[in-house]
């Protein structure tokens, strides 16, 4: 896990980003534990009090979006996205730089477009005032978090380039 310098680039200043990614991932964990508790209590409430928690369905949906996207920057930074490693990447040299650049351009570029498009979606949801069925939670809030997390993931992909591969 020890990060090593890559592309001879200094690592100074990355600590803040790493901390941010980690903080978001902890947020994701807390939401997940909350979902676990909410669903369990919902089942118990149904059998014991014959009264389900209203809106549990949509809270779970929103919770899932938060769990996944809050964890996305750290996952991307740690290079945990599945790769097919038929071709091995040398530990240094031009070939390594080219291969890693290709991957980073793809990942960061796609997260960038995703952030942009989900942000457009967010604006639409805000303009139209779209809310969830039972608790009337404004959906633009969720979309906004997803858009932001995609943007953070793009950053994570780029600065992940400057740290070594996790083995």
């Amino acid at each position, binding site marked *: 896990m020890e990060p090593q310098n890559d592309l001879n680039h200094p690592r100074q200043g990355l600590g803040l980003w790493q901390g941010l990614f980690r903080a978001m991932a902890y947020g994701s964990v807390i939401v997940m534990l909350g979902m676990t508790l909410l669903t369990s209590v919902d089942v118990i409430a149904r059998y014991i009090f014959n009264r389900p928690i*209203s809106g549990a369905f949509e809270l779970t949906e929103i919770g899932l979006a938060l769990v996944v996207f809050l964890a996305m920057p750290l996952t991307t930074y740690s290079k945990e996205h599945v790769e097919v490693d038929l071709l091995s990447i040398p530990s240094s040299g031009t070939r390594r730089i080219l291969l890693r650049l290709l991957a980073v351009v793809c990942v960061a570029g796609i997260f960038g477009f995703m952030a942009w498009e989900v942000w457009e979606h967010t604006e639409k949801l805000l303009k139209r*005032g779209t809310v969830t069925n*039972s608790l009337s939670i404004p959906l633009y809030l969720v979309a906004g978090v997803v858009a932001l997390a995609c943007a953070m993931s793009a950053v994570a992909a780029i600065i992940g380039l400057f740290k070594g591969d996790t083995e």
Partner: protein
Amino acid sequence: EELVLSSWLPPQHPIAQGVIQPWATSVEQVTEGRVTVRILPKPLGPPPAHFDLAADGVADITYGLHSFTRDDRFLRSRIGQFSFLGDSAETTSVAYWNVYSDQLDAQAEHEGVKLLGLFVHGPGMFHNNQRKIESADDFAGLKIRTPGGYIADLATDLGITTQFMGPGQVFEKLSTGVIDGVTFTMEALKAFKLTDHVTHAMHIPGGMYNTSWFLVMNEDRWEDISEEDKAAIESVSGAAFATLAGTVWDAADSAGAEFVTGTNVEVYDAPQEVLDAIKGFADKHEAAWADAVSATGFDGAAALTELRKQANP
């Protein structure tokens, strides 16, 4: 010209098989092959996304329910969701197309698309597995899945705990007791295999509620088509499409009723007391809706009266 249609119902569903597919074929016929409609093997998004898929030009043609859109874009379309509209999906669909297009400018509410068709399903019923609803008090405390919109508000007024979920999850949630029942048509008891988990199916004359559906095409793509072909496509859309869709729903409801006869589900007509209670709340919602509609410059109350008249010839 090839138009691409994104369809979210399973291919064997009566609407997909008996309405969308035949309509696509007839478009090709009336335009003598100049315009063809290709139905994608897989939808380009979940059901609620389908209006915007056409409006944004991701697909050319889509269909769906107005109530899936959780905002106020389709305020006037809700005329097709109220109680006591009509017993036949065919006449009600045609009436819905006529009245919503003429008196309430349906096209204006469907921004970004050409409105090709509108329809409703058969009368909405009340199915549950707890008790026979004999008075309005019997509704209280039941956990019922509704499709949202008007019927969700009406159910809340009746003391029902409403639950939201996709139609595909109803079977699972009924069998696990998450819900006690569902507002659906007769057809749905058969289509979603609910007869083992429902004991009472209450029929309300004219329907406890209905759902309104649209068939739309991206506006720019529509403008690309020649005037001649536009006219040809319109001849198999609009009222003709409403007739086709309504007939298919009616047939599906009949098949559903026949299927249910062989099961332990008790089908019965709502007693007068229950009807009166529903009517009381329904009037309130209709008045509130008509007020909101009049603020947009249309006479909702008159349109609703006209819709009921045309739907019950």
